């Protein structure tokens, strides 16, 4: 799967045709992106799970229309944001409005300011969508290296079968490959804060209703 056509396109085609293992691979690759997008709305764990489940269930029925490398992450981001906004909107209408009490969302947005939050969310989307395009071994290594507290190289070597001395160079190659992914190149090709195909249209809607 390292060479030739785009691995995501291949996985989408296979899962559409009934290959369940290809579907599992799509789920493994894109769960972090989905988790990251929903997480930015700061919903409850139960709401987060309902949205994630709904997005996967819908994706199963929409796969056939996503046979282009950019289409899958774009669809996941757009759909999960739309569903998350539905919860935010439901909450707004069921929680009695008290003009003196700051809402949970307002408080959350004031943590660092909406612009910083938005840029950071867009960066995370691009990085995780790029990560999803990497071959499994490179992806697995980067995820293990990101653990906090950090794992020792010996432990990473044990889990991945990569010799300790190869971990550094493999990380370097994985990062270089990340820079070549469709998601990554798309992100760098547009000015910061300006939502593109992988952009934060719904995230913007949160901070500036009516300008979406």
């Amino acid at each position, binding site marked *: 799967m390292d060479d030739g056509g785009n691995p995501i396109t291949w996985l989408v085609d296979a899962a559409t045709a*009934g290959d369940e293992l290809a*579907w599992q691979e799509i789920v493994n690759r894109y769960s*972090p992106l989905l988790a990251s997008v929903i997480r930015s709305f700061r919903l409850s764990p139960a709401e987060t799970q309902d949205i*994630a489940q709904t997005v996967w269930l819908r994706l199963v*029925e929409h796969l056939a229309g996503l046979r282009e490398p950019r289409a899958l992450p774009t669809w996941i981001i757009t759909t999960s944001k739309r569903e998350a906004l539905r919860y935010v909107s439901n909450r707004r209408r069921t929680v009695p409005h008290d003009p003196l009490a700051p809402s949970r969302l307002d408080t959350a947005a004031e943590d660092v300011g909406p612009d910083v939050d938005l840029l950071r969310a867009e960066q995370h989307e691009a990085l995780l969508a790029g*990560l999803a395009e990497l071959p499994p071994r490179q992806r697995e290594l980067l995820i293990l*290296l990101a653990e906090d507290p950090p794992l020792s190289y010996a432990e990473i070597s044990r889990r991945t079968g990569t010799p300790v001395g190869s971990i550094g160079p493999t990380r370097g190659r994985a990062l270089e490959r*990340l820079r070549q992914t469709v998601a990554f190149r798309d992100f760098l090709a547009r000015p910061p804060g300006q939502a593109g195909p992988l952009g934060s249209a719904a995230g913007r809607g949160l901070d500036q209703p009516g300008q979406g």
Partner: protein
Amino acid sequence: MTEHPWHDDQRLFADLSDAIREAADGLGSIGEFGRGAYAWRTIDEDLLVASLSFDSSLEPVPEQRSSPAEARVMAFTAAPLSVELEVTPDRIVGQIIPPGPAEIRVEMAGEVTVRIEADDAGFFQLSRAVRGPLRLRCETASARLVTEWVPL
């Protein structure tokens, strides 16, 4: 044009690690839902897929007027057949359009499927609280339809 910080391995890896760590929370159950979702794949070319065409929870509401008991109203449309749903905390009532009898399967991911019938006027109801994603399969004399999944 200045070089983006991500051209530096350390900067790129630091940001990537942040993204991975922040997404790690709840990741296990998100993956499980994903793996389970494939079992609901529909392979039926004659089936009409009805998308959510109206959802009262997305309509603008005046800030001052919010009543907790308000029902959520949804419409799923797939010409020539549509379904309207009204969801309250303890039941779901629905209407098949055009009105007429129908067999309905209420599919709830992770739960049993419930079978109900719409009467001659196309009216049906499910007298129980439901939460989590749900969809309906409706079969009338002339058409079969499945709605999009919606979380309740």
